[in-house]
């Protein structure tokens, strides 16, 4: 997936760059909301970028802009030096799984491979390979309605991975997995990423997950980048030693605090002005 990664670009230019990008939505009432507010971000090839931030801060919108599903009103987006167009260059794991209900699990994956120069047999083989990777080869003939939520999420993951894209856009891909499956999937994703080294944009609500996986954690709030942190922890980070290390705990406490403040103090937040500490005191009194 990474071969040809630098093709057609000056060496050293980022794989993905956003410059002064603004995206507004008109709510049904006609009221405007700014999902991305003059945001700038550059991501190098072969990096794993986690994006964290409170609900509604524009994370999903950022991913959709990055592969050209939507066009911003202002600013410039470049993916591999060109304006992004949706296609197999990017793999997208959607927050809602978006499986095609009338296709079997395997055919759902093959559907995403149809724009690639593969024969039907190769598509099938690749679909089965990635299904096996997420532990679902045995349900290849089932329909999505027959799977649990966590299984559907893994199918959606396999579908994006199977494309073997140069950039993976993942919108809370592990949110509905149990803790054990989640860690297994994290490890699997790490293994794949270390083999292929695509650029990954990984949206998550879990600070721990961000710190375990990412080279870089981008903190978003109100449609802007508020902080951009290199994660200096040694890999692999799945062991307890890393999670218990001072560097990990410090970063974790810092990000937690920032996000918590954002949720409570941002006038645009759903929980603006609430003081959970006071609420707790009241409850225990």
């Amino acid at each position, binding site marked *: 997936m990474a071969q040809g990664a630098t093709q057609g670009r000056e060496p050293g230019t980022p794989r993905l760059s956003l410059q002064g990008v603004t995206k507004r939505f008109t709510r049904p009432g006609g009221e405007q909301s700014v999902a991305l507010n003059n945001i700038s971000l550059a991501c190098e090839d072969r990096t794993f970028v986690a994006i964290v931030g409170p609900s509604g801060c524009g994370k999903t919108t950022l991913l959709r802009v990055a592969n050209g599903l939507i066009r911003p009103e202002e600013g410039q987006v470049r993916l591999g030096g060109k304006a992004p167009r949706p296609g*197999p260059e*990017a793999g997208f794991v959607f927050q809602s799984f*978006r499986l095609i209900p009338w296709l079997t699990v395997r055919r759902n994956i093959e559907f995403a491979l*149809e724009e690639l120069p593969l024969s039907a047999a190769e598509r099938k083989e690749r679909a089965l390979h990635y299904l096996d990777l997420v532990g679902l080869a045995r349900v290849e003939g*089932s*329909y999505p*309605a027959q799977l649990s939520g966590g299984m559907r999420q893994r199918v959606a993951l396999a579908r994006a991975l199977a494309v073997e894209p140069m950039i993976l856009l993942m919108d809370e891909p592990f949110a509905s997995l149990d803790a054990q499956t989640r860690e297994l999937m994290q490890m699997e994703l790490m293994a794949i990423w270390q083999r292929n080294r695509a650029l990954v944009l990984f949206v998550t609500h879990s600070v721990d997950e961000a710190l375990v996986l990412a080279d870089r954690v981008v903190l978003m709030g109100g449609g802007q980048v508020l902080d951009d942190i290199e994660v200096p922890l040694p890999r692999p980070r799945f062991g307890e030693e890393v999670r218990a290390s001072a560097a990990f705990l410090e970063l974790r406490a810092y990000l937690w605090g920032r996000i918590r403040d954002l949720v409570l103090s941002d006038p645009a937040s759903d929980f603006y002005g609430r003081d959970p500490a006071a609420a707790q005191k009241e409850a225990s009194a």
Partner: protein
Amino acid sequence: MDSRALSERTWLVALARVGFVGLLLLLWWIASLSVSRNLIPAPSETWAAAQRLFAEGRLQSALLESLTIYGSGYGLAILVAIPLGLLMGAVRLLGRVLDIFVYALSATPRVAFIPLIIVLLGLGFEAKTFIVFLGAVMPIIINTYAGVLQADEELVEMARSTGAGRFRIFARIVLPGAMPYVIVGLRLGATIGLINTVVAELYTAVAGLGGLLSIYGNTFRMAEYFVVVLTLAAIGVVVTELLRLVESRLARWKKDL
């Protein structure tokens, strides 16, 4: 649910249906005894009338005549309505321009057009077929159109993200997603088409099952009249059951393992 429980359930439904038919026959029989004999024939009389009509060949020829009209009108309606509904949904401008006319036309009682149709097409096959067509075509257009419009935006965006073009998205996402709606339209169209077959046979040249209805109704031959009514009901059952079969085939993915 496992398939054995499912097939047991199917058997139960079939058995209950047979039981229900028995109940209806019983009620019919009681009604025939209590209401003045001329108005409601006993089941046995009706059966005798059916055998008589069958032996004379009148039932078969009327049935054939009606089915020809029904089939032609309904078939034509399908051929026109599905492509038109799809086109209206796919080309939004076309849909926006046309949909109000389709709704207006479908709200107008079709009987209102019959005099005009007779003037234009006469009393024969063409006029009758057209009356059936006119009844069946509207619900199919409207439901097909609605099916395309309600296409799952999230799935469409997913398909777009894989690089699928407009045509592939339409063929693989929008069209299959619209199928349940199309089937509903087909079912409504089948019912209205059957009604209009009888209406056409009553209002234009009297013929077919509708013709028999009017003959036996006007001469108070109620046993024969009942035979025709039951035949029409049977056609309705067969057609809607066939469509239900198609539907459950198409919707296999909704079923549990």
